[in-house]
């Protein structure tokens, strides 16, 4: 069985506090209680996307680095101008064999769930035993820190997930979707400025994700009470709270934990997974954002998978 064996991550040490930076626009209680992101991580200007990925790789457990047959980088903020693909640059930095496949996936906040399914299928189809899935979308490359809609939200980070035949978690049946009619709600506009329509994204997230989670539970023959924890893309504290209330689950089962590093786009779910302290059996993960796109799936601890 192909699934998730382990996760490594890298969050830049440099942080910018929203409590100090944003006093012109918002008071501290709004930052703490609603946006929830008190500080965000930011990379050095000369650090490239592949450098952040390399640092995440260095934080993988040493025994996890063996016979890598494919690497995938999920990003919409690649190295340079996006050509060549960042995974090829990372391939060189990792010193990987020429037989190792490398490709990028262009998705934002839904990217981790999509990428898990893609790399799993690719590995099964091509009989690859070990693969690395990187997420890294450093929005510091595109965000205007003075924009009140986006300037306080996004942090830089990278993660790497080792996908192998010796997994801790199996990847279940997914629920996907795209609201293409809303594709311009999050975009880089004609003036090369990153923009977000906050209300459109809010409505999309809180209406779509509870339904997607319900569909995913049904597809995997589970009920909401079977789930030990819900790990959702960390858009903002308020979005997470409203989704949680609509699902009628408590805060311990659907946490917001990005308060000291920010919304890290496709890295937010693997960062939560890596941090998990308890040994949960059933985990729902759900990513949503740019596109407007969403992906939800079930992760089951291998010992709890029947058959």
């Amino acid at each position, binding site marked *: 069985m192909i699934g998730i064996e382990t996760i490594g991550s890298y969050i830049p040490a440099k942080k910018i506090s929203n409590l100090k930076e944003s006093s012109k626009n918002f008071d501290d209680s709004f930052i703490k209680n*609603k*946006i929830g992101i008190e500080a965000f991580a930011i990379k050095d200007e000369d650090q490239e996307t592949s450098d952040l990925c390399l640092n995440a790789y260095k934080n993988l457990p040493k025994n996890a680095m063996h016979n890598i047959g494919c690497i995938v980088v999920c990003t919409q903020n690649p190295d340079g101008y996006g050509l060549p693909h960042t995974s090829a640059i990372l391939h060189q930095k990792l010193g990987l064999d020429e037989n190792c496949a490398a490709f990028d996936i262009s998705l934002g906040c839904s990217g981790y769930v999509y990428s898990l399914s893609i790399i799993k299928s690719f590995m099964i189809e091509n009989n690859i035993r070990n693969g690395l899935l990187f997420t890294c979308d450093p929005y510091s490359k595109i965000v205007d820190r003075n924009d009140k809609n986006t300037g306080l939200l996004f942090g830089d980070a990278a993660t790497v997930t080792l996908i192998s035949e010796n997994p801790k978690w199996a990847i279940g049946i997914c629920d996907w979707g795209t609201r293409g009619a809303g594709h311009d709600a999050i975009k880089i506009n004609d003036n090369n400025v990153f923009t977000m329509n*906050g*209300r459109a994204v*809010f*409505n999309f997230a809180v209406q779509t994700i509870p339904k997607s989670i319900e569909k995913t539970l049904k597809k995997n023959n589970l009920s909401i009470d079977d789930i030990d924890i819900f790990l959702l893309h960390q858009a903002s504290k308020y979005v997470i709270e*409203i989704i949680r*209330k609509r699902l009628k689950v408590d805060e311990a089962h659907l946490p917001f934990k990005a308060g000291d590093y920010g919304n890290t786009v496709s890295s937010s779910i693997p960062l939560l997974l890596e941090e998990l302290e308890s040994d949960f059996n059933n985990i729902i993960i759900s990513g949503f954002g740019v596109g407007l796109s969403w992906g939800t799936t079930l992760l089951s601890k291998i010992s709890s998978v029947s058959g």
Partner: protein
Amino acid sequence: MEITFAMLLNLLKEIDFEGDITKITEETSFEEAGLDSLETMNLFLEIEEKFHITLADPQFEFIDSFGELMKFIKKNK
């Protein structure tokens, strides 16, 4: 279904608005009531879902008081 001001105030309770609802009149602005931008978005979504109305008219973005909101809802219902 006739939409009343009391129904609008009740929606504020449903979104867990922590301000003093008893002090809100049709003249009160969202800012005076202490409704922040995220709570406002949530209130609008609740209105859209409960009353099957779309709050997306170009003039809608200039609405900033509960009385104006009521007028808009009644006009577009």
